[in-house]
């Protein structure tokens, strides 16, 4: 059995993170000492590593909860887990696409301005943003 400090060091997370995981229902201590201190077993170590790895792949804590539910659901199969992973990938691809649009918009703004020392009142980037604000508010 591990105390919260020991398991935190083992799994390379903070004790606060572990308490948060517990609040979110992702891990539970195996038992508590007479003084009320949490005690964790090896299964908790494996679960914390699972959570961290899933987060590294882009899964949110609520996704992790779903993954863990699938893991223990008798009616679930590998295709269900795969679908979750594909949907996560779709969301990431959407974000990438939105970021590319932002990046291209910034390219246009940067091209419109040569920099230099003129007053910000003459700055083409600020002017372009002002104009787009006017268009939006119309």
């Amino acid at each position, binding site marked *: 059995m591990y105390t919260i400090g020991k398991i935190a060091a083992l799994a390379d997370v903070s004790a606060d993170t572990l308490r948060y995981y517990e609040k979110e229902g992702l891990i539970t201590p195996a038992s508590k000492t007479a003084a009320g201190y949490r005690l964790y077993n090896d299964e908790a170590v494996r679960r914390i590593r699972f959570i961290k790895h899933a987060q590294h792949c882009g899964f949110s804590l609520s996704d992790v909860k779903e993954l863990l539910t699938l893991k223990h659901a008798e009616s679930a199969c590998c*295709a269900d887990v*795969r679908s979750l992973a*594909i949907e996560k990938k*779709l969301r990431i691809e959407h974000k990438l*696409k939105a970021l590319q649009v932002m990046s291209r918009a910034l390219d246009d703004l940067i091209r419109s301005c040569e920099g230099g020392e003129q007053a910000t009142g003459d700055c083409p980037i600020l002017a372009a943003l002002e104009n787009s604000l006017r268009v939006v508010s119309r």
Partner: protein
Amino acid sequence: MTVKIEVIAAPGCKKCASAQDELRAVAASVLGEGRLVWREVNVLEELDYAVSLGVLAMPAIAVNGELKFSSLPTPEQFRAVLLRLEPR
């Protein structure tokens, strides 16, 4: 005149496969086989296309290139959308 219906799903998705036959039958009865272009899109092979349609969950259904359902509709919901289509 034709109506293109695309079901975007992952291969191996059992719930998608079983529901597709039923939805296809609904589409054929509403539109007629002659007007129906039915396509099953493998999300992994056409990821960019799925992203361009705005697909975030599967199975999704697009009608004439527009995302209409982000999860499987009931046959009644599907029929209602098809009946509302403008004649093309």
